[in-house]
C-alpha cells in the first residue's frame, strides 16, 4: 500500500519538477531574446558562432543530403516505373526534400552535430566557472554567450536545410538521370512546373526556422542548466539530442498539418 502511495507521490513530484523546469526554460528563453542586443550590435560574435555551428556542420549536411537524394532517386524510380511515370521522378525527389526531408533531416543532423556541441560547451563553461567569472566581470553571460549562439543557430538552420535539399536534388539527378537514364528534360521541367515557391519552398523554410529555434533553444538551456559535473554535462548532452529530435518530429507534424492540409 505504501509502495503504491509512494509511486503516486513520485509521479506528482516529477510532474511538479517538470513544470517548474519548463517555467525556468521559458524564462531563460525570454531573457535570451530580451538580451539579444549584443548579438546584433556586435554581429562579429554571432558570425563566429555561425562558423562553429553552421559552417562546421556543412560536411555532414552535404554528404547526408547527397545520399538521401540518391536513395530517393532509386526508391522513387522503382515505384514510379510501375505506373510508367518515371518522368515525374524530379518532382517526387524535389517535393520530398523541400517539404519534409530537407528541413527535418537537416534539423536532426544539426541537433546531433551542433546542438550537442553547444550543450557540452556551455555546460563545461559553467562547470569550470567561466560563466560565473564573466558575471563577476560585469558581463552578462546570457547576452555575451547565449544570445549570439541562439541567433547563429536560427540563421544557420534554414541555410543548412536549403543546402541539404539542393544536394539531395542533385543526388536524385545523379541516380535518376545519369545512372538510370530518366529523361533529363522532363526531370528538370516537371520539377520546375510542379514545385510551388510559396506552398513548398517557403513552407519548408518556415519549418527549418522553427526547428532552428527549437534545437538551439533546447541545446542552450540544457547546457546552461547542466549540473556542473562530468556526468551532469554528459547527461545534458544526451538530453539535448533526445529532446530536440522529439521536438523536431512533433513540431513537424503540427506544422505539416497546418501548412499542407488544404493543398491539392
Amino acid at each position, binding site marked *: 500500500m505504501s509502495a503504491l502511495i509512494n509511486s503516486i507521490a513520485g509521479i506528482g513530484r516529477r510532474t511538479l519538477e517538470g513544470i517548474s523546469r519548463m517555467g525556468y526554460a521559458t524564462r531563460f528563453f525570454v531573457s535570451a531574446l530580451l538580451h539579444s542586443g549584443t548579438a546584433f550590435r556586435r554581429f562579429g560574435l554571432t558570425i563566429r558562432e555561425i562558423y562553429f555551428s553552421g559552417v562546421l556542420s556543412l560536411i555532414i549536411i552535404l554528404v547526408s543530403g547527397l545520399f538521401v537524394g540518391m536513395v530517393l532517386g532509386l526508391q522513387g524510380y522503382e515505384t514510379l516505373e510501375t505506373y510508367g511515370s518515371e518522368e515525374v521522378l524530379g518532382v517526387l525527389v524535389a517535393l520530398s526534400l523541400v517539404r519534409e526531408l530537407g528541413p527535418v533531416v537537416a534539423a536532426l543532423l544539426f541537433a546531433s552535430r551542433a546542438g550537442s556541441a553547444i550543450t557540452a560547451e556551455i555546460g*563545461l*563553461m559553467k562547470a*569550470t*566557472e*567561466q560563466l*560565473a*567569472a*564573466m*558575471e*563577476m*566581470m*560585469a*558581463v*552578462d553571460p546570457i547576452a*555575451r554567450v547565449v544570445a549570439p549562439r541562439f541567433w547563429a543557430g536560427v540563421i544557420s538552420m534554414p541555410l543548412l536545410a536549403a543546402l541539404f535539399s539542393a544536394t539531395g536534388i542533385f543526388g536524385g539527378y545523379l541516380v535518376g538521370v545519369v545512372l538510370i537514364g530518366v529523361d533529363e528534360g522532363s526531370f528538370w521541367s516537371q520539377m520546375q512546373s510542379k514545385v510551388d515557391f510559396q506552398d513548398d519552398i517557403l513552407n519548408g523554410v518556415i519549418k527549418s526556422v522553427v526547428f532552428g529555434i527549437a534545437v538551439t533553444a533546447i541545446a542552450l538551456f540544457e547546457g546552461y542548466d547542466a549540473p556542473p559535473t562530468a556526468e551532469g554535462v554528459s547527461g545534458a548532452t544526451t538530453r539535448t539530442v533526445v529532446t530536440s529530435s522529439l521536438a523536431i518530429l512533433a513540431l513537424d507534424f503540427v506544422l505539416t498539418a497546418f501548412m499542407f492540409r488544404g493543398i491539392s
Partner: protein
Amino acid sequence: MDNLVEIENVSFGYGERQVLKGINLTARRGQVIAIMGNSGCGKTTLLRLIGGQIKPSHGTIKVAGLEVTTLKQHELYQLRRKMGMLFQFGALFTDMSVFENVAFQLREHTQLPEDVIHDLVLMKLHAVGLRGAADLMPSELSGGMARRVALARAIALEPMLVMYDEPFAGLDPISLGVTGNLIRKLTDTLGLTSIVVTHDVQESLKIVDYVYFVSEGVIEAEGTPAQIHASDLPFVHQFVHGEPDGPVPFHYPARTYEADLRLGA
C-alpha cells in the same frame, strides 16, 4: 583608513542547510585579509555574497559604502567593474588566448583603441611575469600559470577590491610562493584591497594583515598573523598545526562504534 568591505550579521543557507550563521567581517582599504576554514565551511559562499551573485537570508553587506543586497542589476554590474575575482582554477575562457582573456574586460567595458589595449594587457601580463605567454591558449598553461593569468585578468580594470578563491590550491611550492608574493605585491603597488579565501595556513600567514577563521558557519577566531600564531584557542591550534583530531573531529558523526559492529548487545 576606512573600511572597503563591511559584513554585518550575515546568514545564508542552501535550502535547509545553514551555511553561514551571523558572520561579521570587515576589510580595510589596502589590506590583505584571509578567510580560513576547513573545506565546505562556507568560505567561497562568502565571496559570492560579496560579489552579489547570491543574496543572504539575513544581514547586510557593504562594499565601498554600497549595500550589495539591494542594488539593481545594472548598479551591481557597475560595482563589479571595480571588483576582480580570481576563481579557484582560474576560470579562464578556454576559447580565447591568454592575451584575449586579459583584454576581455577592456574590450567589453571600454572604448579604448586597439594599441592602448595591447599595451595595457602586456603591462598586466608583465606584472604577473607572463608577458611571454600572451599568445598561448589556456590549455597550454600549467595550473600555476593559469592562476597568474587569471590574476592579470582580475586586475585588468584596476579594481579596488580583488577576491581570491583558494589561490594556493593544487600549486607546487614554487608557484605557491610566486602566487603569494604576487597577491601581496599587487595589493601594495596598485592600492587594492584583497580578500583571500584559503586553507593554506603557512603560505597565507606570511602575506596577510588580518585573518578570520570560519568554522560551522561562524567566525571562530580572528586576529593578525602574530596573534593567530600565539593563539591558544583549540580550534586555531588544531588548524594552524594541522592536527587530525580536536575541536574539528576526525570522525563524521555516527552511532557508537560498538553499536555499529553489533558488539556487546
